[in-house]
């Protein structure tokens, strides 16, 4: 309780000081400000949604306004993976591997109905029903395909999320906790399906499904 009051006081003080031309900040703020404005996405298009992703990076929607126009072809240089399109079972191991190859801190946007849940192709035998079965996802955008504005909205949401991350304490960001993994197991090709079909760590089994099977 006391710390909250103190934080408010500090904020007021900062505003007051800035009126006199003195700017103060914290390490956390500078760090997050720098990171959130230079998120480099991976050039990673899977299907139709990737075309909308490209459209977002073009002149009309201009994702460069948010500092994210630097699409990197190599996962080693990227901070953000936009899973844009249908993840098939044949592709899923590669997606997980790419995620594992990205350096921390890393973020994932699941773009489109397919990346979230399988979307229109959910009934397919080769379609993964959502990439969050294998890797943690930060922002989901529904839509088939989501409009470029929706992608920009997701991006701003991610920026807000980055901005709120703490560097210390119990609530510190995921990548700063030693015990959380930064790599996730890559599924294998089985004779009928992927093995395992999901990763319990990121996709815990639900006790009761909200859907009912029709008789």
């Amino acid at each position, binding site marked *: 309780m006391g710390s909250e009051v103190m934080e408010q006081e500090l904020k007021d003080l900062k505003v007051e000081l800035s009126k006199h031309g003195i700017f103060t900040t914290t390490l956390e703020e500078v760090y997050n400000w720098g990171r959130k404005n230079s998120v480099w996405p991976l050039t990673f298009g899977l299907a139709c949604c990737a075309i909308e992703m490209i459209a977002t990076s073009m002149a009309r929607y201009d994702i460069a306004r948010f500092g994210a126009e630097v699409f990197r072809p190599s996962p080693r240089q990227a901070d953000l993976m936009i899973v844009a399109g249908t993840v098939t079972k044949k592709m899923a191991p590669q997606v997980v591997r790419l995620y594992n190859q990205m350096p921390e801190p890393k973020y994932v946007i699941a773009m489109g109905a397919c990346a979230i849940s399988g979307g229109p192709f959910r009934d397919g035998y080769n379609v993964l029903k959502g990439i969050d079965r294998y890797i943690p996802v930060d922002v989901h955008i529904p839509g088939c395909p989501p409009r470029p504005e929706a992608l920009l909205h997701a991006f701003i949401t991610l920026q807000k999320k980055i901005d709120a991350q703490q560097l210390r304490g119990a609530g510190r960001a995921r990548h700063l906790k030693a015990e959380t993994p930064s790599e996730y197991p890559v599924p294998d*090709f089985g*004779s009928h399906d992927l093995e395992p079909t999901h990763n319990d760590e990121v996709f815990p089994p639900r006790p009761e*499904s909200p859907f009912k099977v029709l008789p």
Partner: protein
Amino acid sequence: MSSPSIDPVGVDVSAEAIRAALVKGVPGCEATVVENGSPSAQHSLLLDHEHAVEAATFLRDHAEFRLDFCSNVTGVDWPDKEVTEKVKVTKVVDGPDGPKEQQVEETRKTLIPGYLETVYHLFSMEKKHGPVILRLRTANRGEGNHLPSLTPVWRSAEFQEREAFDLFGIVFDGHPDLRRILMWEDFTDHPMRKDYVPPEEDEPVMDDGCAPGSSAEQGAAGQ
């Protein structure tokens, strides 16, 4: 860089005409016309296995037909079918006044064995006509799933026959590179077959009423 407009050349490429030419040109070739009841009236020709490659080469090189373009190759699965029919039979029945002949209705079940089929759609780029449709049928859906490959005749069949092998399990003898094309190597099923059962999912799939045998479809059938 321009071209005059093209007029289709008046060669008869109906299934009947092709059959007549085949029987004459390829000795021993058995070709049967398969009727098509839809308004498109695209009838097709069923070929036997031994002469399929020879017949295909004949059609490709024939001076009038010149079917040099094999556009579409696809597999079709026809599973075993049980046909129930009602037949009237005369039987000796024990009546109140002794045995007597009577007409009785009986349901008879016949099992029509299934087969796999490949369909080839041929056109001619030179003569600008088509389609001519060829069919090949396997002996059954189990061990006898072999068919001659037409890839040596038309290169365009290469990937499409691989696809039929992958998704339907039709083995093409004489194909230069018969591997799975869409699914991974260790996959064991043939998912486009009608009796393929997808792996169990932990979440149920929504029923939109259009799947065969679903409750809504049966309701709509009565309309």
